[in-house]
């Protein structure tokens, strides 16, 4: 209960000082757009590709709750039917800032995989490029994940939480936009809300007990599915944001 009180005080202070100062606590709703043509670029079946073309952009919504000690990024599941729901997966990521501890619930074909680990900080390159997302001015930073993958992040210094989509952090401001270099997957903030998250908002719902570390999970999946080309692609996709 001390936690809640603590949060309340922080939130209260934040609201009072909001006019002049930056946001340190609140909720951000993101929309993720996945370009399925790029996801399925290796497929040769032309009828399937025509179908993909018609439903080219798959949208998913997420919410990020944050304060100065913890953040959680989780999907907002719509109760409506989505015929393209098979095409993308959604993960939940909780980041405890002080311990740099991540709890990630990965989705593999509807099954949950729980990963708990400290993840090494990312090396960000800061650029001069700027743009406005959801009325906040953002600056572009680049993470060179490996030789072939670069991830773009737009962060705003107006929101000071060290947080972002899929647990991305380490920039001097909250990440409001995140994208792969080819624009195949992009996250953009739709709305920023000044609200005080409750303890309940930060709870990760786990259906399974087994918890993996990053390396354990990666090794396990490589062992199970790494022999096949599609398996490698699937693992690459699952670890794309880690």
């Amino acid at each position, binding site marked *: 209960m001390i936690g809640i009180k603590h949060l309340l005080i922080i939130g209260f202070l934040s609201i009072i000082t909001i006019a002049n100062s930056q946001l340190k606590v609140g909720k951000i709703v993101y929309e993720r757009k996945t370009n399925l043509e790029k996801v399925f670029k290796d497929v040769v079946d032309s009828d399937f590709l025509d179908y993909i073309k018609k439903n080219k952009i798959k949208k998913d919504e997420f919410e990020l709750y944050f304060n100065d000690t913890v953040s959680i990024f989780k999907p907002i599941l719509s*109760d409506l039917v989505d015929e393209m729901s098979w095409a993308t997966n959604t993960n939940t990521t909780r980041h405890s800032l002080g311990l740099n501890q991540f709890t990630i619930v990965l989705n*593999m074909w509807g099954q*949950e995989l729980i990963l708990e680990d400290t993840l090494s900080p990312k090396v960000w390159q*800061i650029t001069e490029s700027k743009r*406005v997302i959801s009325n906040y001015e953002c600056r572009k930073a680049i993470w060179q994940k490996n030789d072939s993958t670069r991830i773009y992040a737009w962060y705003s210094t107006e929101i000071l939480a060290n947080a972002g989509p899929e647990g991305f952090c380490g920039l*001097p401001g909250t990440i409001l936009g995140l994208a792969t270099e080819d624009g195949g997957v*992009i996250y953009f903030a739709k709305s920023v809300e000044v609200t005080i998250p409750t303890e309940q908002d930060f709870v990760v719902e786990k259906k399974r007990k087994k918890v993996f570390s990053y390396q354990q999970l990666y090794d396990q999946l490589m062992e*199970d*599915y790494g*022999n096949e080309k599609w398996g490698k692609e699937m693992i690459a996709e699952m670890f794309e944001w880690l």
Partner: protein
Amino acid sequence: MKQLVGLLLFSFISLSAWSQNMKISGTVYDTSGTTPLPDAIAMAVRIKDSVLLDYALTDAQGKFSLSKVPIDTFTLVISHFRFDDKSYYIFGSQENLEINIPNVRLSFKTKELAEVVVYANKNPIYFRGDTLVYVADSFKVGQNAVVEDLLKKLPGITVDADGKIKAQGKEISKVFVDGDEFFGTDPTIATKNLGASGVETVEVYEKKNENAAEGEDETIQIMDLKLKEEAKKGYFGRVSGASDFTQFYEGELLFNRFNGTQKLAVFVLASNTPRSQFDWGDINKFGLDEENGYSQNEDGDWMQKGSNMSGNGVPQTLRAGIYFSDKVGKKKKTKVGFNYSYLNYQLNALSQSYSQYFLTDTSYYSADSTRTLSKNESHTANFTIFSQIDSLTTLEIKPSFQFSNGSTTVSDYSHYLTENALASRSNTISKGTNSDGLSASSEINFTRNFKKDRRSLTLQHKFNYENNTTDGTLLSENLYYLGSTINDTTNQLKNNKNTNHVETVKATYYEPLTKKWKLETEYMFEYSTNAQSKETRNILSTTLTEIDSNFTNSFETTRYQHRVGLAAIYESRKHTVSIGTRARTIQIDNYNIYTATSITQNITNILPRLSYTFKPSKTSHLSARYNTSSMQPSVNSLQPIPDNTNPNRVQIGNPDLKPTYSHRIGMNYNSWNAVTNRNIWSGANFNYTNNAMVDSTVFDADGRQFVKTVNADGNLWTNVYVGSGIGLYKKILEINPGFNASYNKSISYINSLKNERSTFGFNVNFGINFNLDSLSLSTYSSFGRTSPSSTINSSTNQPYTTQEHQVYFSWTLPFWHITLKSDATYTVNGQRSDGYNLNYFIWNASIDKAFLKTENFIISLQGNDMLNQNIIAQRSVSSNIITDYKTKIISRYFLVKMTYKFNNKKEKEEDNDWN
């Protein structure tokens, strides 16, 4: 843009650095220069690679401190969202590890002006709307030049040493090839690898980044390389021939050529082995959609096409055909397709059967042997046009034609024995038929979606016309051994004509009521006419024939059906419910031309249906449904004259037949767990039919059957099944246990006595798959038991069993490009009549060796049924008859096979292996 205000040079000496960190601190003030600014950000960004080294926020006194910055040259950026950034270049060194900037004063934001670029307009460079187009051939490049060389020649375009392209001074973000990205996002892959001579035009345009990766208010510059048509061509194919140099052969040719959106496939298959069809992998790879031997019916079930391709006998097959498809129109929104297939199939079948007949007061036996020679030839042509008229409307037109002719010669000898095994009668039949058929059909589907989500309208028109003529002869001779019956002979000529014409129109409309509810309304009208005439003439002498009025008739049927349907559908992420009903009226007029009598039936049905689906996750699925259906009698079963095509089993029509009415309940559950690598599938079905069309059979004293179709209540069938796949040892091993059971009850009449026959059967099976990269091994075993029971006579209540055991393996040797394959099946039949309890072991094996660098030339030796045991043995149990069949089919043969695979890339051509 960043304003560079201060440049502080702390040192010019840069010594090799130990891993020691610098300490940067300072105090930030607002524009006044006196009020400290809290929550401003100070960050250190390394000059050489823009990497963020460290950052910190200012505290309430405006103070910041960075302690994780290694010794390097970097920019210190002080920023706050209400002010302009301020930057300092810092050259760190051993001598200057601590830097303090005591007074950082931020100034108000300034606005930037966007730059405006104006393009030149010159020939052979022109604008199409906002797109700048360069005609590639106007610019001379060397013989093996790549696109990059071409770009360097284009005015206004510059290419730097890294391959980065600028047009009119602005960087090109993306290079497309024919509107699509070319092998990934790196623009240089296209420009450095594509030949310049293949390029038609180079187009440059600005567009909003659809994916908003670069910003809603930002545009990016795109270069699109439009290729000349000949650059989009290719082909692949396979040709093979196999022979045993004495009797058997197989040959095939498959070729596929693609040219832009145009696709052409040609195929030929000739064989006199049981291999009469292409396998699924080839059908899929070469796009031969109509060659799979199956077609889908109205309910979505797959039905086997054509007749008697079951391989019960010695076949001879020739198939050939051509498939063509293309996308036409300005935007390639219309897909047109055409295919033509020729099939010539001959079968020489020899089968034997032994039947036991059980009547209330007596029983008897028959032994039968039949030789059938059939030849069938058909020409089939299908057309398809599919057009995306606009983003909401599609139109599909599918006409189809088939011409076929066939001939069948049957010679049959049956021998009847009494209960006491005394010969009572023998019958010899020889008959021949020649048939010609024409069928034409078309289907038009029009689908319109609306701006309002989930509202849609579908209109369908179907047309079907068939015309079949059959000419035949029948010679049947009976010899009687008991009593005083005089031997008899039937010698007839038969001529049957059948014309069938059906027109159907159907409209379906969906209207969303709320976000989760929608309403389905449907109307269907069907009109059909059928004319069937059967003429039978008795041959009195070589020149004289006379009409046999017992077997001659002409019959016309007209049918009108109106059907309306209404359903409410609820759909959410986890639950889908559909509740609805259909109502229909059918009017059938049967007119008998010979007797000038007509029978009219008026039928009204209410057909309710209900379904529920629950999807708790993406990988599990539970569904339950209830529906009702009604089947109408065929013209053959209505026509009130006997059909003596098989003189030992004469069919008589029944013009009073009513349509059936069935209730069906089905349930299934599937789940797949990828993490534990387990899956399960299971289901149960229950079907109950009133007014079922059943046989009423009268046996005469000589073992002949006279069968009339009548209505009866109470037919039912029900089944349950469950199967599972369990992966073990990292998916190297998978085990598949399975179980199914069924119970059926059917009514029939034997010599006017009602008989209820019920059958209970179950099957337990177990499979193991073992998979390594070069070796795969699998086994499958099943055990089944069937217990029939009949109320009229308990003699058919004899249970029987079937066991099957299979082993398959394939091993690619690590050297010499050799692959070994073997599959073996052992079948055990138990508890049947003597001579039919056959156990047989069928073993096929092959050895393949690949040649050439591409491994595209393969020589293989195949052995089929190497132990020479192939036979088809089956037991069928009907109300009061048990029949055991044996069919002679192709047994042992060996083939030497040569295969050559090819493609335009001169690479290894991979097979689409679906086994």
